[in-house]
């Protein structure tokens, strides 16, 4: 598909010989999810120390402090891992942001993957913030994200995972266009890629402004024989022809 060069969609070929598409998420939504997760993690830590404080009145001061340290350790290192494995790749933050961790094959993450990617998280977030070492400047993670085609941080590379969008692409085919599109045969024979381009233009047309659509068909003015708004309608009609034929 020619479009694969323009967008971030990842073609994954399964053993069954079919190609599926995954949509890797970039640093911005992932950063948001991380921020939310850190807040949840802190809330859990607060809750744990509260529970341990209550129990220490029963078990004694020292056993209570031992318990609070154990719980703190488990939450600090285990929060991401337990959610990712037991909730099919979604920590609460990722769920809110509509993200999911999967293996690069598209399959679900397992304990081994999640253990690796969440330990290496510590390297990804280097250098850590002074006085608040639970969070860092994410220099290495960001650099790695931006230099790999699938937005993988170092932990993802090691664990062979990636973070993908969970919901579908925002699109609406012809439903929201103002006028119904009639199908018109193209003036010249089209290659497969060209047919696909016209069809995708039709499918995504309702996402763009009129000016943008006119700009997009401007290079085709000579072939289509019309330009401006007329050109847009002609291109949409050809898309409909490809779709319906």
């Amino acid at each position: 598909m020619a479009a694969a060069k323009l967008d971030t969609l990842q073609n994954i070929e399964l053993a069954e010989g079919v190609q599926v598409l995954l949509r890797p998420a970039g640093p911005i939504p992932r950063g948001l999810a991380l921020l939310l997760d850190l807040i949840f993690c802190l809330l859990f830590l607060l809750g744990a120390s509260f529970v341990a404080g209550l129990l220490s009145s029963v078990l004694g001061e020292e056993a209570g402090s031992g318990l609070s340290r154990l719980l703190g350790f488990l939450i600090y290192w285990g929060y991401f891992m337990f959610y990712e494995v037991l909730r099919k790749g979604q920590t609460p933050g990722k769920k809110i942001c509509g993200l999911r961790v999967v293996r690069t094959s598209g399959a679900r993450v397992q304990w081994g993957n999640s253990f690796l990617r969440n330990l290496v998280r510590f390297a990804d977030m280097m250098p850590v913030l002074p006085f608040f070492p639970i969070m860092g400047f994410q220099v290495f993670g960001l650099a790695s994200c931006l230099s790999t085609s699938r937005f993988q941080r170092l932990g993802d590379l090691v664990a062979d995972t990636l973070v993908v969008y969970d919901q579908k692409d925002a699109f609406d085919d012809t439903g929201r266009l103002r006028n119904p599109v009639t199908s018109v045969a193209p003036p010249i024979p089209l290659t497969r890629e060209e047919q696909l381009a016209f069809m995708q233009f039709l499918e995504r047309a309702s996402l763009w402004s009129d000016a943008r659509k006119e700009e997009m068909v401007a290079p085709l003015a000579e072939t289509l024989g019309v330009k401006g708004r007329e050109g847009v309608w002609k291109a949409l009609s050809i898309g409909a022809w490809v779709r319906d034929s």
Partner: protein
Amino acid sequence: MKKADFEELNEPQWRELEDTLAALDKRQPTATASNLPKLFRQACGDLALAQHRMYGKRLCDRLNDLVIGAYQRLQLAAVRGGGAFLSLFTTKFPQAVRKEAGLVSLSLALFFVPFLAFILAAYFDPKWIYALLSPEARHQMDQMYGSDQPGDFFRERFGSDFSMFGFYIMNNVSIHFRIFAGGVLLVVGAAWAIGYQGIFLGATFGYVHHTGNLHRLYTFCASHSSFELLGFILGGAAGMRLGMALVAPGRLTRLAAMREAGKRALPILCGSTAMLVVAAMIEAFWSASYMAAEIKYAVGISGWLLFAAYFCFAGRRAHAA
């Protein structure tokens, strides 16, 4: 075939696959679960056809999601129970350690060379210690292992044992995880962390040699020493494996080398984490108990010998994974 005909023809199967997946996600029993492989293969075929015949984004997206959902469901790891856990320790962990013999030796050297060097340096010239240990640290050492402290080290109550267990788990295992993670930063992070542990422990031991109650220090440390030090050292080696994938990927691309390194490092990481958890248990519940020094020394020395034998010989007969 027109798109509408294609959809009409296959809709019942897609619907069945969707319902089956939804039911499995909710853990409801379904009669159609055994059809899943068949439905999945059909959906794969339909997706390929829909993509090839350009049936449009909406249909392709729907089939794409169906195929991914069914694939994820079918690819779930079989639940292997205790078997996988056991085989980690009987074969995979020692095999993985032998495979990384070079990095493990490097990690051993990074720890023991500064460790022994600082003990020796402190023996000949105590100034070395004062350069490293702050007055507060020295005061703390005096309190724990000072010459005026009683000969044996022990805690009074179970509560304080448990409190220390929480502390050792939190402190030592976290250090271990950070050492491992540091390795991915071009080896340097893990190498520095291991070396730092060597330097600091060397200075501490050197200081106690110089001023304190050696007997007290050694009876305390003997029992858990092998678990804890080897655990750190192996964690460092596993981390350095990740970094080496970036520095010297060999004949692989760097990305592929990272993936491979993750697979090779994982058994070592799991095994060494278990070693540190055991070390924390020994350190909390046994090392400080009131017991003859000979027993503690014997336990400590046999720990090192058993680990040497374990890493040299365990899992030799089983086929390498």
